[in-house]
């Protein structure tokens, strides 16, 4: 590298930088905002030196030795030498030019953002890896690969971010801004500036600038047009923030959500849930936040912090809180143990303000148990099922809670607690009833087969009942339309037969329909006699007959068989019904066939299914019979054993 050789020449000693060191130093060099002449901003350099956590006198020595003091500024070579010296000092070697030649570890800078630090520590050897990742970034993040490809150095940094940012891109592209901004400073300054400029032009500059502003405001950096300044400000402000300790509320508040961020969060909320007043369900939110690629325990913790009403869903404010915590976490801030004051539920104007943090939290927690007692049973059942229920029940309560709880802090909790408790008690009853309903709802997967069983066993009887019920309504159109088979023959002429077919969900009923259709086909669309006895009798035949019928192809030849079948039918209407339909069938068979072939197919399928269920049931029956025999035998043996004992007992 030229810089290296330059450094070597100016320092008067041969400095060999390893690849890692090269990258680190170039990145830091870029961070320090070198101007055209190659001078580094002394402020930045000073920050960097402070970050190295060396005593001031060591820093002075370093400055002196590297030659910057002499020059009055940090040129690139001086900077590199200084970095080397810092590494030396950190590893305990004396700060001298000779130590520069030693094999030193990378200088450690505390207080820089943890991510860049980690990146520096783990710089991979290959740039192609990050490059490949750049290419692999989804199209939605098109600007990131495009920008990043222009800068070589951020690739190493990007490598860590790429896995994170692409998945988040659809949901939080401006949120990338803090992440990406970090990458740019580490680029070669010009490249970084270019890419950043292009990025800014593509994205809405204001949110990003304001995002920067939020973090840089305490540092008194304005959101100027030069892209690098906000970036540098962000980097340095983050560094300083980290130095001061994260979550430091009085001075700079990283937890405060700016307007632009709020706007962004609103848009994201809308993408998930169009109604701002509604809730985002837990599963939806989980899916969304998982895209951020934070580890699950952290997301879990964030959820715990942000779901203040403990209902398993996020309101808009909770969502903003959670989102902000995620953004902050991704930027390297450690997660707080409790909700920071600016992220308390009252931070948006949707709810009233709550000044104090811990009191409010405790108040909220006090109120929530009373709420939660009602929900406990529900939620124990199955999270989602119950959660949906509770969400239905709790939003109103939650809203009343929120509205009522926050106006004055001392009173509402006491007010609300008895209120909530009184409300909870009736609610708990209802919840248990809901539970029961749900339990019972969960229980019966089996009912549907039962009707079939009954029909199969007592087909004729049931069908008799059907007939009796249906008889009065036959002409009016069969008040017992079976749900399974939709009316197939659409023509009005076969309406009677349609109704007959409609009556046939269970096995036997359908099978007669098969026969019915044969009737239909035969009758065609000619006059339709009210075939009351006909269809009824068709329902009558037993299984064997119907199987016969199903096997037969639809043809007029069935007509003569029908009277045969009807003999099995207990009803006596058969002989009456048999002749008239039989007579009319043959002539009208063929034209009706085409109309009803489709229906026939359906019936055949239904028949097949019924046959299968029949087979299953017969098998079951046989097994049960066997068991019954076994049990009988056991009983017999037991009785025989008992007999000899009886005389003893009686005596």
């Amino acid at each position, binding site marked *: 590298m030229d810089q290296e050789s330059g450094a070597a020449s100016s320092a008067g000693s041969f400095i060999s930088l390893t690849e890692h060191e090269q990258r680190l130093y170039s990145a830091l060099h870029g961070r320090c905002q070198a101007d055209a002449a190659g001078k580094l901003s002394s402020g930045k350099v000073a920050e960097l030196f402070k970050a190295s956590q060396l005593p001031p006198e060591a820093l002075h020595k370093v400055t002196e030795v590297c030659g910057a003091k002499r020059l009055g500024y940090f040129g690139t070579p001086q900077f590199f030498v200084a970095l080397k010296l810092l590494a030396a000092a950190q590893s305990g070697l004396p700060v001298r030019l000779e130590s520069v030649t030693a094999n030193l570890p990378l200088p450690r800078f505390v207080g820089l953002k943890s991510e860049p630090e980690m990146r520096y520590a783990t710089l991979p050897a290959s740039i192609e890896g990050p490059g490949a990742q750049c290419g692999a970034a989804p199209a939605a993040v098109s600007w990131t690969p495009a920008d990043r490809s222009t800068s070589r150095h951020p690739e190493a940094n990007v490598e860590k971010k790429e896995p994170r940012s692409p998945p988040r891109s659809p949901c939080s592209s401006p949120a990338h801004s803090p992440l990406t901004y970090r990458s740019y400073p580490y680029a070669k300054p010009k490249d970084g500036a270019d890419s950043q400029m292009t990025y800014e032009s593509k994205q809405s500059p204001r949110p990003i600038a304001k995002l920067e502003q939020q973090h840089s405001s305490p540092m008194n950096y304005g959101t100027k047009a030069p892209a690098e300044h906000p970036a540098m400000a962000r980097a340095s402000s983050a560094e300083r923030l980290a130095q001061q300790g994260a979550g430091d509320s009085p001075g700079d508040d990283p937890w405060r959500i700016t307007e632009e961020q709020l706007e962004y969060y609103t848009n994201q909320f809308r993408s998930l849930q169009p109604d701002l007043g509604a809730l985002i369900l837990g599963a939806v939110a989980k899916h969304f936040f998982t895209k951020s690629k934070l580890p699950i325990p952290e997301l879990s913790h964030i959820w*715990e912090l942000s779901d203040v009403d403990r209902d398993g869903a996020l309101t808009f404010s909770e969502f903003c809180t959670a989102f902000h915590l995620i953004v902050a976490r991704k930027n390297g801030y450690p997660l707080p143990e409790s909700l920071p004051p600016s992220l308390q539920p009252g931070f948006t104007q949707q709810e009233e303000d709550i000044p104090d943090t811990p009191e409010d939290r405790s108040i909220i927690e006090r109120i929530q148990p009373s709420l939660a007692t009602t929900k406990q049973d529900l939620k124990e059942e199955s*999270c989602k099922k119950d959660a949906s229920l509770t969400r239905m029940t709790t939003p109103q309560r939650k809203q009343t809670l929120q509205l009522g709880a926050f106006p004055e802090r001392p009173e509402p909790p006491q007010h609300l607690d008895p209120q909530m408790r009184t409300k909870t008690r009736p609610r708990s009853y209802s919840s248990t009833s809901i539970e029961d309903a749900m339990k019972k709802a969960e229980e019966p997967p089996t009912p549907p087969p039962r009707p079939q069983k009954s029909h199969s066993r007592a087909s004729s009887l049931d069908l008799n009942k059907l007939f009796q019920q249906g008889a009065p309504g036959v002409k009016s159109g069969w008040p017992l339309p079976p749900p399974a088979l939709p009316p197939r023959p659409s023509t009005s002429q076969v309406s009677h037969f349609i109704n007959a077919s409609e009556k046939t969900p269970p096995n036997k009923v359908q099978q007669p329909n098969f026969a019915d259709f044969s009737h239909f086909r035969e009758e065609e669309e000619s006059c339709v006699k009210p075939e009351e006895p006909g269809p009824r009798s068709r329902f009558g035949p037993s299984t064997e007959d119907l199987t016969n019928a199903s096997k037969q192809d639809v043809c007029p030849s069935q007509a003569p068989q029908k009277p045969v079948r009807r003999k099995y039918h207990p009803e006596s209407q058969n002989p009456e019904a048999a002749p008239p339909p039989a007579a009319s069938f043959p002539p009208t068979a063929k034209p009706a066939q085409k109309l009803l072939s489709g229906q026939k197919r359906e019936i055949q399928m239904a028949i097949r299914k019924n046959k299968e269920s029949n087979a299953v049931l017969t098998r079951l029956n046989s097994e049960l019979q066997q068991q019954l025999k076994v049990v009988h035998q056991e009983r017999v043996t037991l009785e025989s054993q008992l007999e000899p004992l009886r005389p003893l007992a009686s005596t």
Partner: protein
Amino acid sequence: MAVCIAVIAKENYPLYIRSVPTQNELKFHYTVHTSLDVVEEKISAVGKSLGDQRELYLGLLYPTEDYKVYGYVTNSKVKFVIVVDSSNTSLRDNEIRSMFRKLHNTFTDVMCNPFHNPGDTIQSKAFDGIVSGMMVQSG
């Protein structure tokens, strides 16, 4: 006041178990394990009445000379077991009930967290906090 608090899943494996660290923890694990039998017995006994209103609080499961074991079952067969020191005679039934109620509420909150998969061990800090509060009370 508790010496040991455990949350046991429906399938009878522990979701969370914590005891006052000064003592032999294995002993408490054992105790909780054996108390499961008593819990099952109590559940099945009440179940005959098709107890939709089965009492969640099971009460004293069994006393030993050193400590007493209380049980609580939720409607989804998640069991809470609290072991208290026998010397702590001041603890009344109501207090135990309130402890269980608090546990149940916190457990519900954990369950509500979409990032928590039912069946996983409980890693919620809030839950830890509540449990520690209940255990530290014993002084």
